[in-house]
């Protein structure tokens, strides 16, 4: 695939997506897919798929790994670093401002009430995240999913293993008992 693009071109796309796309990493990845593959043809479907797959096995935040992989694919090391910085800095600055404001806001009764309600919603967000993470594995292989989820839940809930140890145990299970691929 021939492409003639500069760091400035890359910067515009990642800065816009990093600044204005709400809804988390999946929403931003979908937005980037439209920009990079469908609208601008900077990436082929295959390259997009490779970057997406790599982002899923890279530790940390999928969106940032995806952005880094796309930057590398398009413009090498410079592209990777710029994509990573531009996908993360706008949100980081805004988040620090919001966090600073949070401290001041708690003394205002109306804002405090709004924040209490928003924090209750955050509990819902976390529960929904659990469902989102488990939904596909449960459909794909419910028995295997429960074989991992229930011991992980019990071991962590009763403090028998640290979260890190639970994750390592799950990884070991995945390694020694590979999931059967759908035909």
């Amino acid at each position, binding site marked *: 695939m021939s492409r003639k693009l500069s760091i400035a071109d890359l910067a515009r796309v990642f800065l816009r997506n990093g600044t204005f796309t709400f809804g*988390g990493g999946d929403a931003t990845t979908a937005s980037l897919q439209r920009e990079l593959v469908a609208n601008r043809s900077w990436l082929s479907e295959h390259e997009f798929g490779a970057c997406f797959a790599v*982002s899923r096995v890279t*530790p940390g935040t999928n969106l940032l790994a995806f952005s880094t992989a796309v930057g590398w694919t398009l413009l090498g090391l410079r592209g*990777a670093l710029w994509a990573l910085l531009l996908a993360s800095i706008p949100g980081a600055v805004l988040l*620090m401002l919001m966090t600073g404001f949070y401290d001041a806001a708690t003394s205002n009764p109306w804002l405090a009430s709004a924040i209490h309600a928003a924090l209750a919603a955050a509990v819902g*967000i976390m529960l929904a*995240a659990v469902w989102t993470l488990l939904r596909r594995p449960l459909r794909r292989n419910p028995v295997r999913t429960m074989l991992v989820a229930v011991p992980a839940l019990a071991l962590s809930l009763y403090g028998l293993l640290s979260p890190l140890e639970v994750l390592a145990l*799950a990884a070991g*299970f995945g*390694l020694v008992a590979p999931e059967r691929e759908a035909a």
Partner: protein
Amino acid sequence: MNAALLYLLLLKATLTSFSGLSSLPIVRDELVVQYGVLTDSQLNAAVALARAAPGPFGGYVISVGYFVGGIAGGIAGWLALITPALLAIPLVHYFARSTAHPRARSVVNAVVIASAALILVATVPIAAQALGSATLIVIAGASTLVLAATGVETAWVIAAAAATGIVGAWFGAAL
């Protein structure tokens, strides 16, 4: 807590997670339980703030860093957030094909499932602290249902909850 130690503790969490909030149990274990430099209330606020802002949900570690160490802590959180992404460079360069290997996918899938269980465990004490009234429990339940069943952006759910809180305060209902 100095920023370097905070960075290393948050990095430990981000390096061992594979999705936005799956680092949360380790963050809580280190900063709330072990070091006592963060409260459950602040951790909950960090999650809410990250959800209400653009960018990845995993960005909550930036807010966590800010709560613990101010601007320097926020920068430590941001560095901990972006550092693992650098691993994507060698991966995409050398191992793009092997990531499609069934065994590699199996490991990732098992870790994601375990992460869900760990998030659920981490939610319990946070919910106990945050849901102090029937109205707040209803808001949490409604948020869960809306987010699990629809494609509504979480920022709108946060905004709706906050608006409910303001209306509640207007009518003198304690939340």
